[in-house]
């Protein structure tokens, strides 16, 4: 199966799924909104009555931030705790949505009835695979433990190479090499988990651990191709991030700060929606690749 064809197929399929993009965006938006509300209330309560609030309009101000941090540490702690809980909940919701997305993406062309009742199919799939995907997340801890061990090993290697930190340049470059290796491993684990989930959905398998093992085998057997496909998608994401970053200074400024904020907010949400699209493209492209492999 060709990598580029899988990539193209994934992009096309993701583009054809606006409802799923909206679901993913909505998931993200709701969680963001929860934190926004809390932070907004905190700021209004702590600094909204002060003339210092005006300084927040000019950008991030460390002196105000430090005052907040010290004098309202309990509120900041609460905010961090809520943020942490939200992240955990977000993971659970994401595990739930995986099943729905893959159920839709794996629908055969002849399943017209299921395609007509898309929402029902989506949530049925989400419910059906939630337990299995949750177990998969637990089993995946093995991979994450391995990730931590490799990092500890790299840490020791770094100390050895740099003479316990006394060679600055080696230390500096090694730090960035470690970041690159770390990212590579994170992407690798995510890729394995993606193929594992695809396997579970396509085969309707309950053997979750076996699917994880088979996914690892698949990834390493087709290492170049699976990697190439994954990094094509990563590159797509990075390109769009760069475009957003470059375009940011050119956003129109209005005399009304409310209008400027509204435009910035809409652009930000567009960016988040794009992330949803990209996530679907990841699943879809790897699915196409997987099907191509198993068909052969």
């Amino acid at each position: 199966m060709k990598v580029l064809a899988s990539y193209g197929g994934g992009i096309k399929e993701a583009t054809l799924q606006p409802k799923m993009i909206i679901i993913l965006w909505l998931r993200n938006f709701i969680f963001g909104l929860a934190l926004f509300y809390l932070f907004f209330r905190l700021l209004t309560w702590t600094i909204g009555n002060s003339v210092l609030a005006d300084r927040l309009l000019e950008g991030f101000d460390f002196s105000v931030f430090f005052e907040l941090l010290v004098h309202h540490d309990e509120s900041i702690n609460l905010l961090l705790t809520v943020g942490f809980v939200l992240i955990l909940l977000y993971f659970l919701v994401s595990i739930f949505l995986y099943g729905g997305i893959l159920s839709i993406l794996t629908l055969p062309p002849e399943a017209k009835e299921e395609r007509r009742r898309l929402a029902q199919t989506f949530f049925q799939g989400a419910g059906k695979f939630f337990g299995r995907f949750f177990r998969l997340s637990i089993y995946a801890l093995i991979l994450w433990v391995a990730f931590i061990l490799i990092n500890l090993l790299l840490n020791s290697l770094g100390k050895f190479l740099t003479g316990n930190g006394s060679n600055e340049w080696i230390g500096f470059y090694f730090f960035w090499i470690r970041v690159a290796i770390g990212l590579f491993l994170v992407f690798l684990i995510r890729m394995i988990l993606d193929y594992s989930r695809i396997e579970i959905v396509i085969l309707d398998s309950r053997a979750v651990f076996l699917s994880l093992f088979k996914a690892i085998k698949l990834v390493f057997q087709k290492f170049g191709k699976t990697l190439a496909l994954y990094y094509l998608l990563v590159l797509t994401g990075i390109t769009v991030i760069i475009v957003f970053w470059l375009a940011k200074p050119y956003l129109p400024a209005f005399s009304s700060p409310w209008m400027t904020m509204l435009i910035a907010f809409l652009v930000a949400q567009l960016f988040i929606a794009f992330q949803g699209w990209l996530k679907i493209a990841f699943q879809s492209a790897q699915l196409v690749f997987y099907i191509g492999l198993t068909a052969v």
Partner: protein
Amino acid sequence: MTSLLTFSSFSLAGLSEPIVDYHIKAKLIPEEKSVLGEEELTWINDSNKYISELQFHLYLNAFKNSRSTFMKERGGVPRKLRSNRKNWGYIEIDKIQVKDGPDLTSTIEYLQPDDDNKDDQTVAKVALPRPVPPQGKITLHIDFYSKLPRVVARAGYHKDFYFVAQWFPKIGVLWKGEWNCHQYHANSEFFADFGVYRVEITVPEGFVVGATGKRIEASRNEDDTITYTHFQENVHDFAWTACPNFVEFRKNYSLENPPVDTEMILLIHRSHRNQRQRYLSALKNAIEFYSQNYGPYPYPTVTLVDPPLGGLGAGGMEYPTLFTSLAFSWMPKGVYMTEMVTIHEFGHGYWYGIIGSNEFEEAWLDEGINSYSEIKAMKKYYGEDSSMFNIHDVKISDLVFHRLRIIASSRMDPILKNSWDYYSGATYGINVYSKAAFMLLTLENYLGEDVMSEIMKTFYERWKFKHPTSQDFIALAEEVSGRDLGWFFDQFLSSPDKLDYAIGKLRSREVKEPEGILEGEQGLFEETEREEAQAQEKKYRNEVVVVRKGELIFPQEILITFEEGEEIREEWDGKERWKRFVYLRPYRLKSAQVDPDNKVLLDNNFLNNSRVLKPKKISPLKCALDLMFKFQAFLAFVSF
């Protein structure tokens, strides 16, 4: 010996009466990580008492074992020392005798004047066969061996880098008729008498050497070593460094007004060569700032030492005419840590070096005044908002860093206290560095920049080489400003409490006409007349209550702003717990602000210094939306 270079002798115009005169011969033994030394010390009894014992600092003994006061105070032995028996440091006096007189070695006795820790050997005394009379002098000959520790604090070695400080038997200060000779503490720095140092340093060939004072001679020896002779008057300590991986840069610096002519010597570790320019530029700024604001730099040299990464324990430390800073070869330009440390450590050359206050008992006179000077210098050369960090849109000032330390601190200690008596190293640092600096900045804003400038210049000029105390500084500040400042220093130097004024209440109510049946000048009011009067002119009772939340008192200025643009500035002595201001106006007030010009930098909470009548929504909204988007992007990245 073959002479390599010889300078003619010079004099520093005899700025201080020398109490001590050291002539030391030191030889570095790299294989043993040690220094073998011979010292000839002449000491003058400057008191009006007969002195029958002499006290000495033997500071390398702080690194001798886990029982020293230094180790106990710092909460344990650093791993670097513990890992190998050879890593410990100590100093042994092999012989001490009166020149051409009796041997005193057998009379050596360790003292623990600060904490009675019998295991501490950082102070010793010797008994004299005959007392030294007032204004009499005594010359001693001392043979000593200094084993350097792995560098963990201020002095020691790392591989082939040697930083040799607190390394020779240094006589204590006979102050107010008593020996003032404190032990080596984890927090405290040092105190010694001014005098003359002539030190011959012998190192193997290939080592680059830097030391206190001017190099007056360099000669090659037959055993493949080189002896460098350094000489300096009007200093109270001597430190040196040696490393084959130093690269030496020398550059003359002169200033017309005030007249300064000195040589900048940079000993930069080979791995940091790319940081050379920022070091030299910061040093130049430092000399200029201190010379222009306090007094011309008086010495013929200043040596800046850049330690290697493993030797950073010696980084950021000052000695007369020589100091260490720190840098990383990869450090971005917008991070001004090297600049800040360079300016700060150079500044010590003034307060610790030239003023020479007692750092054990009144550390703020050095650290606090120096941090105050550092904040001002950093602001001048690297920007008001960006003097510590300036990369893209992220800007942080040196001032903000110091402020964070102060406002986050507990109320455990005041600024003025024995350095070893602080609750912790952190409270020592916060009080004697940051809080003392902010005390002086607040005083500057209170008295005015010109008056403060005059105080600092006069303090430097009058007290250089004289060991002033806090009382001397206060008396001088009062004299120059012409104001009673006792209330200020009594509070801020001696109290651990905080200063915090706030706008407690802000209210604006429409004034209603009295209701009911009322007797007026023109008889009974008619209901209709009252309504007409109200419609013609609405009035508001605008009320501002300012409260003192902290224990410390400071006069306050309050700015009250009204909707129509009117502004009123009020003054309050700040003594009571609260003060109410009431204004009847045909319009509402908009905001009230304590200390509107941000002069009282010691105020502990800037968030409560102001209040607006209508809470602001837009800025919290913008900030919260920014956070929301960052959180959303994070979630999008970490999940599928």
